[in-house]
Each structure stands twice: as C-alpha cells, then as structure tokens.
C-alpha cells in the first residue's frame, strides 16, 4: 500500500479514469495549468491537454452547463467548483437541469457528471469560503451526494462517481486535502450507499462524514481510555444513504449521536435522526443528540469561528450526555 494525500488520491482516480475514456474531461477555473485551486488536478494538463483539462472562465453556470451539454451527448465530465459556497452560482444548472433530465425526458438523457466541491471551515476563510452546504444537495431528487473522509474512500468513491450515469456531487473538505492515508496500488472502487464503520464500539453510535469523522475518532479514542466504547460510523455517501448500517448500529448500542460541520438546524443530521426515530425507536435507550455548527454566518477570525463550528469538546459533551441517558 502506498501512503497518499487525500488530494492525490482524487488526482489518481481522475487520471486512471481519464486514461480509460477519451471522452471524459475535467473543467473548472484553475484546473489546467495551475493544477487546481487545491492542486487536485496537478499534472493532468500536461498529460491530457487543454481540451480534456479545460481551464474555464469564472462562469459557474457556464461550467456546469458545459458539463451537462457534453454529458448528454456522449461525454462524461468532472466539474471543479472549488468552494461549496460557489455552488450557489450554479445551483440552477445542477438542480433544474442536471438533476431533472433523466426523469423529465423519460430516460432519453443520462447526465454522467461529477461536480467536485469542498465544504468546511477551520481555515479562517470567512463567510463566503467556509460553508458546509452538502445538505442542500441531499434535498434534490435526481442527485447523488458523497462525502469521503479518507484518501482511500476518496479514490474509490471518485471512481464510482465518474462511472455513475447520474449527476454526483462529490463533497470534499479543505481540511482533508493534505491528510494522508493508505491507498492500495491495485484498482478498486467503493460502491455508493455503503457506510463504513471506522471504529467499532458497543456503548454509543456516532454517525458522521467528511472531516468530522476524524474529530469524532479522536474523541472516541480519548473516551476509550475511560472504558467508553464509541462506534464511529462514516456514512461516506449521503444519497444513497446506508440506512441498514445506521439501524444496525443503533440496534446494537441503543444510543445515537450525529455529527456534522454544517449548522445543526436544517442539516442532514436531522434526516438521520428522523430515520432512527422512525425506524429504530424501540431500540433507543436515550434521546438522539445532534452536533453541528451554531446558527450563524461564519466569521473569518479563529476566535469567533471556533465558537461557532463544532469541535471535539462539543462531540465529547454530546456523547457523555447521551451515555447518561
């Protein structure tokens, strides 16, 4: 196994798939000569040329529209929208076009595009570069949304995303890009809709995804020393969602904490809590707890940002509260 940074795992996945399919291209600002705003596409411009690694103007509607138009006429596309905040600039194309075509045209059109976008704060980037907007995508039928937390998952899920005949929102996190992890040299893919238990446990289930997986694991290993056994379930894929894994874990522990960086109110955690309440109510031994950002715009300076975003202490508190029952 090689040790790779999360960003390089995505880079590898794209390169491998681009080599297989001449009609697959990458489009976005900075993806070409600059190598990607976060260096996700480094070396690709030299390998595949400007037509397949397309530096675009800062025209998000145009970028996604280009990807869609190409995808419905025999190509596949990966579009890079470096900050999820900028998804607001092209949600019309994503929601009203990409997500609708297969249904609206009764199967005449498939839209095999991947829209890659980073969520997340903790880098003092302020109100318009720090939001975690993944919940927005999960409310749109026709879209699939994945949010890998490790290099291994990022590579496997990116390959699946590229092969999928539907529009996929591939949610990365700025705080994950430089994180290293083991990635097999042999080809592999990870199916959508399959959660991964990142740490087995028996006392309480913690459901999370993206960067919060790591913060949760850190808290879990701290509590382990006190003899508290936390099961950390990385959802990896928000739609399709691995309901079975969620329900199985709750059945085992009887207690559930849901953690994400997006604001608690209106966040995807509400959906998970509702599923548990609806389908595993009898297994519950304590109320469900959610951990997320406070209801606020995100400020730039860390002293304020850290107050609003969920931290390890918030996760720990929630776990302890649930364990008390």
């Amino acid at each position: 196994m090689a040790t790779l940074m999360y960003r390089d795992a995505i880079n590898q996945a794209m390169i491998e798939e681009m080599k297989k399919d001449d009609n697959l291209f990458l489009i976005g600002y900075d993806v070409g000569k600059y190598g990607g705003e976060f260096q996700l596409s480094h070396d690709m411009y030299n390998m595949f040329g400007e037509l397949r690694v397309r530096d675009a103007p800062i025209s998000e509607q145009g970028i996604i529209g280009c990807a869609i138009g190409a995808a419905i006429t025999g190509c596949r596309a990966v579009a890079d929208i470096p900050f999820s905040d900028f998804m607001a600039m092209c949600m019309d194309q994503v929601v009203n076009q990409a997500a609708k075509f297969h249904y609206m045209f009764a199967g005449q059109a498939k839209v095999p595009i991947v829209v890659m976008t980073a969520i997340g704060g903790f880098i003092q980037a302020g109100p318009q570069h720090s939001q975690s907007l993944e919940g927005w995508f999960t409310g749109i039928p026709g879209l699939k949304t994945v949010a890998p937390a490790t290099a291994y998952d990022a590579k496997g899920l990116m390959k699946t995303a590229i092969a999928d005949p539907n529009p996929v929102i591939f949610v990365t996190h700025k705080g994950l890009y430089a994180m290293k992890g083991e990635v097999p040299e042999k080809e592999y893919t990870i199916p959508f809709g399959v959660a991964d238990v990142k740490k087995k446990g028996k006392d309480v289930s913690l459901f999370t995804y993206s960067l919060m997986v790591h913060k949760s694991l850190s808290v879990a290993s701290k509590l382990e020393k006190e003899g508290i056994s936390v099961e950390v379930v990385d959802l990896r894929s928000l739609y399709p969602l691995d309901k079975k894994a969620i329900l199985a874990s709750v059945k085992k522990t009887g207690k559930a904490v849901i953690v994400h960086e997006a604001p608690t109110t209106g966040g995807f955690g509400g959906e998970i809590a509702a599923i548990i309440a609806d389908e595993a109510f009898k297994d519950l031994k304590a109320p469900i707890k959610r951990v997320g950002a406070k209801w606020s715009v995100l400020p730039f300076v860390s002293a304020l940002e850290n107050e609003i975003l969920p931290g390890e202490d918030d996760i720990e508190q929630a776990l302890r509260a649930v364990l008390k029952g």
Partner: protein
Amino acid sequence: MKSLQGYDKNLVLKMYEGMLRIRIFEENQSKVFRAGEQEGFTHLSIGQEAIPTGVCLNLNKDDYITSTHRGHHHMIAKGGDLNRMMAELYGRKTGYCMGRSGSLHIADFSIGVLGANGIVGDGNPIAMGAAYSIKLRKTKQVAVSFFGDGASNQGTFHESINMAAAWDLPVVFVCENNMVACGVRTADVCKALKNIGDRAIGYGIPGFNIDGNDVVEVYETAKTAIERARRGEGPTLMNCMTTRQHPHWEGDKDVRTKEEVQEQLQRDAITGMEKRMLEAGMISEQEIKATKERIQKLVDEALEFARKSPKVGREDALKFVYAE
C-alpha cells in the same frame, strides 16, 4: 422582403410547408388547450415559425438543438413526430416523455432535440456544452441554441457565448426576438433591443440582426453561421426580429395593446411567404389550399392518436428518477 424569383423552388416549398406544419399544429393546440383537454401550461409559437424552419433546414438529423418553454416549433422544425408530440401534450404513455414533460420540456434525443427548457436562458450553456462534446469527440456536428430576447438578459447568455467564442465551439446562438419577455416589453429593460446581434462584437464573433419573419433571410443567415461552425471556426449570434401573436401562455392576459398585436399580424411570416410564392409563380391558390388540407390531416391524425393513447398510470410515477 426580397422576391423569390430565381430561388430554388423545392427549397421554397419546404420552407413553406415547414412553417405551415407548425402553424396548423399550434392553432390546433390553442383550440384543444382552451377547451380544457390538457393539463398544465402551453406557450404557443404562432408567429415565430420562420426562425426554426429556416435554421433547421440547414441541420442534419444528428445535429443538436436546445429549445425553450415556447418550443413546439423547434421540435417540429427539427423533425419531431407529431403523434408523439401531441401525445405528450396530452400526458399520455405514448408521448415523448411519458407525461413527465408536457409542453414545457418536450425532447427527442434521437433527432438531437436536447429538450425544451422551462428555465429561461438555460439552453444556451447546454448547447455550448453539446458543442464542446462535438469538439472533444471530433465529429462534424453542430449545435444550435434557440432562445428569446428575455433570455438574452440572463447571465447564461454571456457565460455561454463567451466560452463558445473563446474555444471556437461549433454552436449557433439564435435569438427569437419577439420583443416581449413574459409580460414585460423588452424595450423597457434593454436599450438595444433590436440590435441584440451587435453584442457579438463584444465576444469577437459574427453577429446578425435580421427579419426573423422572413424564412429566406433566416435560412441564408443560418447557412452562413452553420457552415462556419461546421468548419470549426466558432460560434455566431443571430438576432431574429419576430412576432409573438398569442399571449405569453395560452389563456394569459397580454400587456400589449390590440393595435400592437394587430400591427405585428401584418408581418405574418406565412401570409408573407404565400404572397411572395404567388408573385413568383411558385404556387397557386389551389395548391396552397391543398397543402393546408394535407397538413391539417396530419395534425388531425396526431390528435386522434393522442386522444386514443393510454393514460399514464400511477405505477410509473417514480420511474426514471435515476439512470441505472
């Protein structure tokens, strides 16, 4: 309008018949929609027939078009099947989109119609993307985006034409300028309404401002633009001045005065063409009548097909949300 003297008669007849197919289909649509036979909304293209007819006579079956909420004429001009169209308007199983699209989103990918579109201005980036695909796949196809003067003030207009121009994409942007966007006169919100084609200068591409009710002028301009695109020399912007003879959607109120609409009727594309054809001795009154009857029969057949087609069932409601 120029005389048709010396013009290819077969081509003229094709233009005339093409426009008539649309007109008769739409007049029927107005009638049955107003009679309450269909659900939803319908936006009629009566008065704008010359534009897609003139453009699409230059296209091949595998060329692409994107269309708008007012899109029946695009579909018919590109060779859409009247039966399946009508069945879709009736929400039947045999319709193009099995009752999912109705009038607003009708599509036939087998003839390159990449969908009518309910979002004003969204066809432009999609046509640009189809042109990108043509370039990537190295075929000789062309994409055409039909849009209105309303869409010309959306950001997608700028983004798409700029990108298409930057990369010399094989796409033609065809503005059907009927001078009214929903209920707003475009002249009230756009200083250079009649010269939208001049915006091409800003993108470094050719632009034309033409009479969109003169099918011959549309045909000739589109020919130049499409040939340029096919040669790989890049996009063209065509601004075609036309007339929307009906309100925004069928049954809607109209902000325009009766006099305004009446004046526009004087510029009717089809009666104008008939006059020129008669003058040039290319058709007789009798032949006009016979042509109309022949097309009316096709529309009647489509209507019968739609009415007799099976209705969609609730068991199909969740089909096609995702592709397998």
